[in-house]
């Protein structure tokens, strides 16, 4: 059985770091905060690796099947008997895998930041926020309750907000953090309503019970939920689809991806941590967590997931070919790769060999974490060196930054899917799964993989080749040891992670899956990848005017892609024009003028009436006497003639 204390410590240590540095960092730990944070995370990483070893090799397998363990569960808030938010820890193959990924990448970022953020005024705050983020992400991964995952989901969102807006005096950073938070919040609304629907149908918030109830077709819950329909879809379909919207928001799936490129305003190590390896895959993780429900009960939603992933993958790849900010290229490439993971889940089925897509998705998540974190950290080193994000300010850096150059190349090869680097294996599995289940998605994915190779090498050549020598006069070194160490470690990971027999450990139903390797099948994607690399070599290896000519000949397509297909503008139009001007402003006006106007009208009417009557109060005694007398006379007349 898993050791609850050890597993609980994995998220709690970063939390302790957050509290310690957040409360006392400014004064007491001003200089040592980085080391404290890193040391705590190192401990977490070691514990996570230990847990992974124990789980995968010691106790995890019962009768040849990987089981889920819940070593601890505390009731946090009880709504009614059976329906409660529990703080539990679910230990199974995907959560353990994620524990390793999150702690490892976070540790790399912690180490890297020791050099990258050195001399920053809010150094300790930075490490505090890192701790908070890592804690939330680990909590999310370990969640055993759908509401628990929502709680950590939101916490991840806010710590990402804090980190993106770390340079809070930069208006663009503030705007980007706001955008990221609001867009994901909008998606979380879907998630929340989805939770309400699912919990109401299944009568529980606990993942296991919920999955068990909702996947058995004979259960009453499924029957009633299937009959009650809204807009032509059953309640369960709606619930599952809405939960996916939440996942799509966090994972920057089309059309909720607009926050991700802007989020690059944060410090670069943050992008490596949050926007490459951890938070953005939370959506994939969520779908994987609820995978049995999607695959068994609502396959229609799974189909949608597949298409959303495929569309995101190709759109992002096209946009990435035109961007000039290196971090934005990486951001779009992240979106594209997560699209891969998403549609891999979408084309998968539950259990056995047909669950290949599930394994492939998790495998790609794992390898992607390695090479994408590496790419971001490498980009960070480059930015650190040239003090610019723009490609045009770079070029010919290979001589000045040999380690960065080498590791960046490895990562590019990995993401392009060139054997024997990590990306090749996972991507090949994804393509195979797609080929077996949905040919249309397979073709989209194939084209995307060619595009991926092209834009990644466009990036690579523009940074490290292109111009013959670097034009920036000052040349401080490539970066300190602490910045190079993570690059090397992640480089090793990106090169070698593919050889892990992933299917042995992670599969949709816990049964080990044999790794396939079809040589003929790999020919097409690898050839396309090589073609993409050659195209990039031809266009960008030397400084020339070919790219400009190509862009001109593509005309409006290039322009549309360069402007991110105007999706941002559409959103801006909806929020600014419609929500602010057509809803917000009228609501505020209505309140001040109509609702409050009615209240004031009551007051004013009363006042006007009294203004009218007060004229009778003239102060002239004799007038009063006349009123009195006439009153008496009228009354007397009434008494005499009417009420006799």
């Amino acid at each position, binding site marked *: 059985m898993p050791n609850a204390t050890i597993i609980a410590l994995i998220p709690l240590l970063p939390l302790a770091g957050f509290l310690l540095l957040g409360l006392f960092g400014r004064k007491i730990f001003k200089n040592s905060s980085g080391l404290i944070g890193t040391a705590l995370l190192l401990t977490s990483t070691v514990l996570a690796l230990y847990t992974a070893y124990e789980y995968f090799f010691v106790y995890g397998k019962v009768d040849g099947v990987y089981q889920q363990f819940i070593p601890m569960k505390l009731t946090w808030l009880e709504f009614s008997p059976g329906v409660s938010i529990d703080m539990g820890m679910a230990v199974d193959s995907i959560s353990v895998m994620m524990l390793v990924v999150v702690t490892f990448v976070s540790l790399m970022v912690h180490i890297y930041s020791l050099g990258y953020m050195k001399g920053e005024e809010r150094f300790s705050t930075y490490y505090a926020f890192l701790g908070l983020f890592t804690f939330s992400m680990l909590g999310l991964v370990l969640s055993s309750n759908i509401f628990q995952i929502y709680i950590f989901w939101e916490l991840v969102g806010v710590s990402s907000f804090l980190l993106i807006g770390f340079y809070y005096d930069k208006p663009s950073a503030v705007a980007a953090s706001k955008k990221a938070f609001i867009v994901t919040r909008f998606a979380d609304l879907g998630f929340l309503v989805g939770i309400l629907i699912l919990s109401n149908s299944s009568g529980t918030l606990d993942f296991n019970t919920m999955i068990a109830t909702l996947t058995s077709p004979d259960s009453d819950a499924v029957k009633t939920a299937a009959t009650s329909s809204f807009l032509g879809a059953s309640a369960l379909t709606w619930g599952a689809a809405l939960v996916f919207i939440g996942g799509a928001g966090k994972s920057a799936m089309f059309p909720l991806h607009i926050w991700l490129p802007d989020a690059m305003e944060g410090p670069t190590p943050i992008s490596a941590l949050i926007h490459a390896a951890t938070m953005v895959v939370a959506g994939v993780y969520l779908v994987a967590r609820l995978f049995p429900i999607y695959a068994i009960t609502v396959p229609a939603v799974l189909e949608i997931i597949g298409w959303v992933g495929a569309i995101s993958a190709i759109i992002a790849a096209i946009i990435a070919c035109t961007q000039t900010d290196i971090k934005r290229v990486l951001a779009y490439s992240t979106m594209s790769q997560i699209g891969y993971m998403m549609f891999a889940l979408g084309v998968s089925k539950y259990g056995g060999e047909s669950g290949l897509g599930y394994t492939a998705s998790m495998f790609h998540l794992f390898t992607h974490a390695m090479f994408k974190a590496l790419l971001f950290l490498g980009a960070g080193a480059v930015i650190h060196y040239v003090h610019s994000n723009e490609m045009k300010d770079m070029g010919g850096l290979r001589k000045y930054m040999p380690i960065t150059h080498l590791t960046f190349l490895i990562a590019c090869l990995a993401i392009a899917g060139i054997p024997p680097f990590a990306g090749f294996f996972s991507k090949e599995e994804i393509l195979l799964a797609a080929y077996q289940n949905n040919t249309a998605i397979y073709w989209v994915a194939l084209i995307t993989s060619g595009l991926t190779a092209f834009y990644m090498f466009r990036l690579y050549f523009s940074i490290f080749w292109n111009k013959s020598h670097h034009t920036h006069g000052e040349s401080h070194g490539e970066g300190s040891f602490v910045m190079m160490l993570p690059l090397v470690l992640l480089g090793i990971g990106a090169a070698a992670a593919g050889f892990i027999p992933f299917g042995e450990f992670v599969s949709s139903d816990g049964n080990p899956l044999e790794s396939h390797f079809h040589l003929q099948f790999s020919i097409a994607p690898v050839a396309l990848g090589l073609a993409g690399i050659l195209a990039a070599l031809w266009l960008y290896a030397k400084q020339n005017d070919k790219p400009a000519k190509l862009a001109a000949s593509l005309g409006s397509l290039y322009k549309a892609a360069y402007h991110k297909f105007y999706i941002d503008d559409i959103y801006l139009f909806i929020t600014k024009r419609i929500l602010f001007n057509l809803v917000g402003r009228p609501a505020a006006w209505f309140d001040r003028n109509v609702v409050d106007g009615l209240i004031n009208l009551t007051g004013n009417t009363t006042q006007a009436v009294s203004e009218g009557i*007060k004229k009778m*109060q*003239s*102060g002239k*005694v*004799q007038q009063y*006497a006349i009123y009195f007398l006439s009153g008496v006379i009228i009354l007397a007349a009434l008494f005499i003639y009417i009420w006799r």
Partner: protein
Amino acid sequence: MMQPGLYHILFISAALFFIGVYGFLTRRNLITMLMSIELILNSVNLNFIAFNKYLWPGKLDGLFFTLFIIAIAAAEAAVAIAIIINLYRSHQSIDVENAEDLKY
């Protein structure tokens, strides 16, 4: 020779009452208004006495009421005149038109 009956007395009292009312409503001098009030009160007194004599000759209620009213009228006159004097001190006038400071 005809004895004056109840109606004669009531006629006089009514006349007295309306003279009083007329005086109260038209005169601007507070003292005159006070005198008009006395006329009204006296018309009431006359009524009381007359009704007592003609309707319940054996009883004294009407007479007692009359005495009460005379006493109260005296007290009222004292208070009223005190008010009027104070008003004269502050306003240098006992014209009722000038005493309207207490409106609204």
